[in-house]
């Protein structure tokens, strides 16, 4: 779909473009912005976008927005990155922003950590080789992180070759995810049922592979973890 962008005056054009770049969660390439604002321009008379066509028009609008941002002393600009345009804070604010983000990052578990944690939660007691077989990747570091955060602990040794250590979840795990006991974990089957047949056709998620289950768990966990306070004396975050 496209809107009739040219019906707006230049100020409004800038504002629409600025809102578009603002609300996108990835850098927007000029090409795709152009497609949205003007539809398929290849079929149109390019002279209306003279002198240099649609993309040049958009580029000059972006320049004008950045001038406005500078004049009004905003601490961010639109920058070109990764083949697209997006907002970024100015470098002089970088330090304070990144130290804030780091603070926030310490509160989140990485996706790898959540994935591993989900496997341990559902299959405990479980050994590293088993975890790695399921995830398909080496998991030493992430297990270390989980041990450090006291979300998992060593619960014994397997009887298999090499007698690998077995891991299980801790009370900290239960507390972090607001569970009374391990029985409160959603059963995998329940999750599958929940994810079957969505109501709206456009949001069809067919749950076939384990991957999807993992992702669901991760999404859920992620949500809960973000609201949990950082653990004290933390060596390193996941």
């Amino acid at each position: 779909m496209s809107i009739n962008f040219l019906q707006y005056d230049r100020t409004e054009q800038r504002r629409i473009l600025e809102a578009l770049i603002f609300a996108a969660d990835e850098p927007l390439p000029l090409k795709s912005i152009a497609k949205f604002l003007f539809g398929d321009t290849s079929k149109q008379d390019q002279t209306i976008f003279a002198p240099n066509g649609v993309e040049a028009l958009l580029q000059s609008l972006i320049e004008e927005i950045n001038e406005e941002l500078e004049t009004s002393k905003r601490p961010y600009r639109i920058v070109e990155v990764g083949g697209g345009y997006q907002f970024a804070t100015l470098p002089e604010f970088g330090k304070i922003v990144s130290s804030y983000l780091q603070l926030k990052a310490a509160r989140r578990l990485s996706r790898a950590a959540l994935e591993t944690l989900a496997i341990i939660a559902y299959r405990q007691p479980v050994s590293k080789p088993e975890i790695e077989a399921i995830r398909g990747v080496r998991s030493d570091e992430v297990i270390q992180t989980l041990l450090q955060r006291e979300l998992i602990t060593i619960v014994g040794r397997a009887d298999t070759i090499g007698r690998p250590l077995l891991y299980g979840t801790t009370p900290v795990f239960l507390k972090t995810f607001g569970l009374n006991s391990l029985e409160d974990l959603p059963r995998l089957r329940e999750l599958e049922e929940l994810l079957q047949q969505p109501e709206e056709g456009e949001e069809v998620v067919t749950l076939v592979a384990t991957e999807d289950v993992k992702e669901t768990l991760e999404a859920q966990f992620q949500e809960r973890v973000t609201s949990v306070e950082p653990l004290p004396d933390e060596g390193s975050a996941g």
Partner: protein
Amino acid sequence: MIYRIRLTNFEGPLDLLLYFIKRDKLNIYDIPIARITHEFLEYVRLMKMLNLEVVGDFLVTASMLLQIKARMLLPKPESEETEEEDPRTELVHRLLEYKRYKEAAEALAERHQQYRYYLYRSIPDPTPAQMVEPVYKNASLLDLLTALKRVLEKAENAASESNVHTVELPPVSVEAQAEFLLNEVKRHGEITFQQLVEGMERLVIIATFLALLELIKHQMVGVRQAAVFDDIIVYEP
């Protein structure tokens, strides 16, 4: 062929009863059970005819209505002193309880209408390195493989959309891709893997990926990312 009709917007038997009450301006505390049951059953018959999947829910309510109707027909106890509970009481309570949430839903709908177009800021990841001191860490092999998997899936989707099924040997070698990659990195200073392989075919993507691994090994390029599963940024070391 047998069709089942999905009424995704249908609110159910209580909603239907409230509809009757509203339509006929009935007193909710003095529902004419016989009349309403009759009409309700008409609906249920129709639903069966149309093979609506919600009919089960309506049958439950239908049997409740029939029970109330039967109880209403029973002769009242002789002593007028003992206050016999109206058989309709529970139904009235359920209707009122449901009505509360129906109204709350309307209020929510209004709020949604009002607020659904507040698009909240979300952060494009990774934050551009040249603007913000990044919290990057070096990317691991897993990160690289994840990026590759994502790119390949994208390429496959694109291929299946365009119905192209040509399977050929890579038109380029790993060496050639290494050269291409180095040039790109030199030109841009840094570039995401996603961009590097944009529009490439599956096999070329794999060749590029192998080239990337080689170049990393020889420390001719570096890779990093802001967080696990973010785009891999290839940069000039």
